[in-house]
């Protein structure tokens, strides 16, 4: 009980180090969501609308990749970006950029797989109507993505939730450097192992509160825009 009280006090006092950590976590995870959406949504829609040999296997693989362990992604990106790795010359290991890359890779399958399912279901409903209007393949993709926009918000939230909550990937490629690559999750892990439970608890509460408010904002946007456009 006393631990929780100290955690709330930390938040209420507005500790600048705490805010820097919160800001970095949000910047990294939101950037990853934007990048993963740009890649994953067209990919999912394409997979939903095309038929080719081996497609079912690809769908199963994509669904399985939703459960990709963050530490494995972190390790793979670490190997790519480390000095001796193929992209080592870029010198971005242990930077927020590397963290964005790792989280993007982690959540592209989530957004792509959920988009694939959503778009495929909608296509079953729209197929006749769009075929009768002679809509081009590219037009079908954009129409279905746009008309599925309210459902696709759930895919984005799932991606964001995954990115904001993971610790393994950002820890490995970011290095948890104080004031530079320390995020809420890596800080919680570190403070817990140091025995600084009030700070760990405070950070944990802030993280949960932020995820909750982003979901609430997304819900509000959905309700409002559905009322506007049906």
């Amino acid at each position, binding site marked *: 009980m006393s631990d929780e009280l100290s955690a709330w006090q930390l938040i209420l006092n507005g500790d600048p180090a705490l805010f820097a950590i919160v800001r970095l976590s949000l910047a990294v995870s939101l950037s990853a969501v934007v990048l993963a959406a740009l890649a994953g949504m067209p990919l999912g829609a394409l997979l939903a609308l095309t038929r080719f040999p081996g497609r079912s296997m690809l769908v199963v693989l994509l669904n399985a990749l939703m459960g990709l362990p963050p530490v494995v992604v972190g390790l793979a990106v670490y190997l790519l970006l480390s000095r001796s790795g193929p992209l080592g010359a870029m010198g971005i290991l242990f930077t927020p950029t590397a963290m964005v890359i790792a989280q993007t890779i982690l959540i592209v399958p989530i957004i792509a797989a959920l988009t694939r399912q959503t778009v495929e279901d909608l296509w079953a409903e729209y197929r*006749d*109507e769009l075929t*009768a*209007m*002679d809509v081009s393949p590219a037009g079908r993709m954009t*129409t279905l993505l746009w008309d599925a*926009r309210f459902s696709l918000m759930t895919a984005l939230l799932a991606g964001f939730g995954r990115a904001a909550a993971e610790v393994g990937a950002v820890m490995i490629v970011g290095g948890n450097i104080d004031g530079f690559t320390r995020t809420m999750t890596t800080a919680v892990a570190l403070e817990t192992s140091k025995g600084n439970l009030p700070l760990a608890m405070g950070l944990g509460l802030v993280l949960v509160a932020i995820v909750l408010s982003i979901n609430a904002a997304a819900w509000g946007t959905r309700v409002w825009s559905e009322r*506007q*456009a*049906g």
Partner: protein
Amino acid sequence: MRAPSSDLPLVLDNVSLQAGATTILDRLSLTITPGTPTLIVGPNGSGKTTLLRLCMGLALPSAGRVSWGGRADSKPVRRAILFQRPVMLRRTAAANVAYALAQARTRRSQRAERIAALLQRVGLADLAHRPARKLSGGEQQRLALARALARDPEILLLDEPTASLDPAATRGVEEIILMAAQSGIKIVMASHDLGQVRRLAGDVVFLVRGGLCEQGKAADFLDHPTTREAAAFLRGDLVI
């Protein structure tokens, strides 16, 4: 602005369609030329919807061939279809019409004017900015008509568009269909409502079990059917 090629005459030449072991359409030949509305009449399950889907190019025959203006290419040029339950795009009524106009390659500069004209034509001008999915069944059917008319069709296929509407909404939809017919659009409409056939039809195609049973002028079909099946159907007997 007329497209260079035409979708008429629409010719079905000895067309059959099988789904597994079931024969849905059986060696059916039909030529559709410009003129008064053609109503496709028959009991449920007689193949009316499938016939319309073949006419639209949405289904392919298992045997026989379909051609549009002499072409076998199923790409819709100047034809449109109204489904029994049309899908409303998740946008406003006006945006639904705008979408159809864009797909029909209407010039951007003409779109606003045509959206207003089409919505006026189907009596939805006041609901232009309402989300399409919030409209009533009759309003949705009229919006789907506006979308179909946006393609500037020569031939409009309709699959029992009033089957789930109340009489007032049915009248609204029928008035638009008659107006379209008067403006020179060939109407091909499936119906199993004999009152509707009497109100709209120029001629009738009567289907039984996927085959063409009787064909002719509406008045002749309704008052002097030549086949036993047609006479039974008109009497209100079940034709199986």
